[in-house]
């Protein structure tokens, strides 16, 4: 069960599948980004032309800024809220099971269903959110950029905070009781317990939660599009909308390809930074 050939055989099925569903399509994108095409079947080499045109387009930079801002807000809301709820969930018993089942329901809501649900919730007269905000006074003006952003963030929090909760909850359950007993003997307060015992032990699950939420919110598409169509104006036109518009609706494969590659570079850089920050190089047992 050892040796290079075995390793190769073990990795082979995954590498084959990833070649078809990841490497080849990514290769297509890199190819598109360096070529021009008229009908999508004959390609002419154009060098970095598309990168220049994307990087000099203000629409790209604004969409990038909106996407980065959206992801940052999503993480700022969902991570602390998720940790808090996980800390307050009962450790065991029938209530824990019921609450966990209910918490998980939004996670399995299809993106279109989530978008539709929040779209209808903001509709005048029949919408739940609209009714609540009207009753409270300010109303819900979906032509107001700040309001629309708040609705999208609320939707994202509704859909995904549970992921942070479930991951942290599982992480907390894995902390041995002896740690808490030792802390109690030392007279540690609630905050000290969180800061010095729980948070360090949640590092890895938090890394997973942050990476998954970062990636998926950075390229949010269907849900936001159903609710806002990218508006009002272009205030909720995110990078993915810009990309789909360019690559599949205007059929500018080259420009779309260049945008994709730039997006990938950004995402890999951010992810690598998180990785290096949170995960030290693993010491392998000899």
């Amino acid at each position, binding site marked *: *069960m*050892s040796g290079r050939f*075995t390793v190769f*055989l*073990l*990795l082979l*099925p*995954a590498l084959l*599948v*990833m070649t078809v569903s*990841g490497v*080849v*399509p*990514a290769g*297509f994108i890199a190819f*598109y980004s360096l070529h021009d095409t008229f009908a*999508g079947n004959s390609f002419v080499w154009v060098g970095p032309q598309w990168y220049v045109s994307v990087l000099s387009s203000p629409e790209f930079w604004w969409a990038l800024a909106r996407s980065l801002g959206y992801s940052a807000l999503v993480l700022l809301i969902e991570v602390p809220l998720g940790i808090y*709820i996980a800390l*307050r969930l*009962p450790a065991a018993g029938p*209530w824990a*099971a019921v609450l966990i089942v*209910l*918490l*998980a*329901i*939004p*996670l399995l809501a*299809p*993106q279109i*269903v*989530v978008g*539709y*649900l929040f779209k*209808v*919730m903001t509709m005048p007269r*029949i919408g*739940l959110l609209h009714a609540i905000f009207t009753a409270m006074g300010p109303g819900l003006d979906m032509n107001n950029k700040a309001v629309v952003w708040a609705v999208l963030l609320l939707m994202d929090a509704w859909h995904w905070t*549970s992921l942070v909760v*479930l991951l942290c909850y*599982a992480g907390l*359950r894995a902390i041995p009781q002896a740690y808490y007993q030792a802390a109690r003997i030392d007279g540690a307060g609630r905050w000290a317990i969180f800061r010095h015992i729980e948070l360090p032990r949640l590092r890895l*699950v938090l890394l*997973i939660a942050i990476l998954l939420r970062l*990636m*998926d919110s950075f*390229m949010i*598409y*269907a849900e936001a599009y159903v609710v806002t169509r990218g508006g009002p104006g272009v205030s909720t036109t995110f990078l*993915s909308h810009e990309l*789909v518009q360019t*690559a599949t609706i205007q059929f500018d*494969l080259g420009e779309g*390809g260049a945008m994709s590659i730039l*997006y*990938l570079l950004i995402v*890999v850089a951010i992810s690598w930074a998180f*990785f290096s920050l949170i*995960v030290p190089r693993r010491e392998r*047992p000899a």
Partner: protein
Amino acid sequence: MKGRLSMAPLVYVALLMTPVYWLLVMSFKTNAEIGGGLTFLPHAVNLENYALIFSDPDWYMGYVNAVIYVLLNVAISVMVALPAAYAFSRHDFFGHRGLFFGLLMFRMMAPAILLAPFVQIFSDLGLIDTHIAVAIAHCFFNVPLAIWILEGFISAIPREMDESARIDGHGILSFMGRILIPQIAPGIAVAAFFCFMFSWIEYMLANALTTIDAKPIAGIMTRAAGVMTGDLALLSAASVLGLLPGLILIIFMRKYLATGFSMGRVL
């Protein structure tokens, strides 16, 4: 940690469930009743919307199609991820860390990025509008995730187990089937849960790679919608049914949801 029940999670879960309840109520109404304003109970439980979905293959096949490609994807993802996760866990080969991060990089790609090439590739292969096309497309985000999850679970098992299995004369296949898989069953359940989740909710690729025969419910809803003018009662019923497969899975998985997510060490 004491076992007492605090208010925060109860309030939070109640808030989470309010839109779901509201959706459920709408699905039992008629369009006229929905248009009449917001109420928290339907006048009468009207099952017309559900009856229409269950009697029209254009609608109910949407659920069947989605379940088919999702299950295909889960099966492929977990089957190819398992041996790879074992290799990452047990063997320190050249380029180990780089390959692992490289695989994760694909999880960080978004469907929007790969949309154009997927449409071209699957058109060339004549696989547009097939379940397998969607199942394969969804692998780019699910295989890396499944490897990541399973690697943690395998690494939590002492290496001595591999040694004693080898001494007992197990080959690699019989070791995996008879010893490793039963040992990491919770890990396989968690990996399958995540793959199901991300494949089930994905819209863009599933919709773009299908036209009629493999169209998922999300695509059918979009086509039927144009939400402002659409049939709100019918769409609400379709949405409620869209939550059901997930709910069933969650109920089966509830034991693992609570305990099975601590994924051991990472990288």
